[in-house]
């Protein structure tokens, strides 16, 4: 099934849909902003909000990928993890500055 993937910045990609995967001849430069991704087929339209891009296994050299949506809870957990990682780095850097190691 042929579909059109439309990103929030206006980028459009014509792709083949197979199961939950989309397939392109080669890996494209995906836009950074995945806050809204619309997939249109001749039959229906699906909108992914806060989309997460997952690259899938390729068996033919083409680019296989899929989108999932990040829930509010998943978003919160991700942001907490990122904040925790940043704080850990800060502590390690301060430790190096103080103890010289």
């Amino acid at each position: 099934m042929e579909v059109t993937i439309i990103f929030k910045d206006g980028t459009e990609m014509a792709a083949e849909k197979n199961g939950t995967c989309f397939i392109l001849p080669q890996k494209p430069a995906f836009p950074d902003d995945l806050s809204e991704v619309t997939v249109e087929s001749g039959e229906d339209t699906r909108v992914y909000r806060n989309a997460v891009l997952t690259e899938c296994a390729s068996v033919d050299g083409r680019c296989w990928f899929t989108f999932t949506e990040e829930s509010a809870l998943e978003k919160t957990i991700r942001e907490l993890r990122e904040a925790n990682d940043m704080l850990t780095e800060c502590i390690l850097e301060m430790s190096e500055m103080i103890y010289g190691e």
Partner: protein
Amino acid sequence: MAVSTIPQPVKPLVDSLGARVGNLETGATGLGTRVGNLETVINNFLIDGSLPGSAGFHNSIFRGKSLGGSVTEAQYAAIGAGTFDGLFIGDYWTINNVNWRIAAFDYWLNHGDEGHVCQTHHAVIVPDTCLATSCEMNSTDITTGGYVGSDYYTASNSNTGKATAGAAITGAFGAEHILTHRELLTNAITDNLASAWSWYDCMFELMNENMVFGSSRGGGRPQIGINYNIGNSNAQFQLFVFSPNYISIQAPYWTRDINNEHNFTNVNAGGEGNAVGASDTTVGGIRPEFAIKA
């Protein structure tokens, strides 16, 4: 008390009872004859295959009979016609020292994505033994890319499991008799779970847990991961429904479900569902499913 001495008012009742017993004996004899006839009919059906010709009927009887050392032209014709005459669940051919056992009929009929729907009658076969041993799914304990991304599936990193199994299957039945059908297979992992699937042409694949157990066990974690593992192969094979002893073959074999980012699932030597690291060669057995056609 002799019958002749039975008081006159009671005698008619005794006579009537005697007559009824006589009728009962006659009835029982008739019933016995009918049961005998029924047995004959059933035996004739089982022997000459004159039972209703449908996958549903033949899926509902376990027989477990040896069918010899090759599939006959008549048997292929019965499969092609979808009548499955003379073929029942558990029946098997012994070819190249392997028992190839019938596990289901028309399992994937009407399955498939647009333009690829299976319309070919078929008999699903599962070997009694592993076609390859000491195989790993991946060279390290990862499940990146799901089943489709595994070394086993792609024959990467010197993984010979799939090639070995394929050679055994085509050597036994001939490639022209192996059904190419469509199955939904996992091809991505996110947050420790299978997270995507696609339709693929399949000739033979590792079984999923649902085919074996009728439910997801080692891979059975959050529902979304289970869904991707099951795909369209979503019913237990009748072989394992009617005779669960065929699940365990006293040797471990891989199933294709994703348990987490490190483990695939398997059936271990004791017969229980398990999950182990993808590079564990001690699991290693390749016991695939496939289907034969006319």
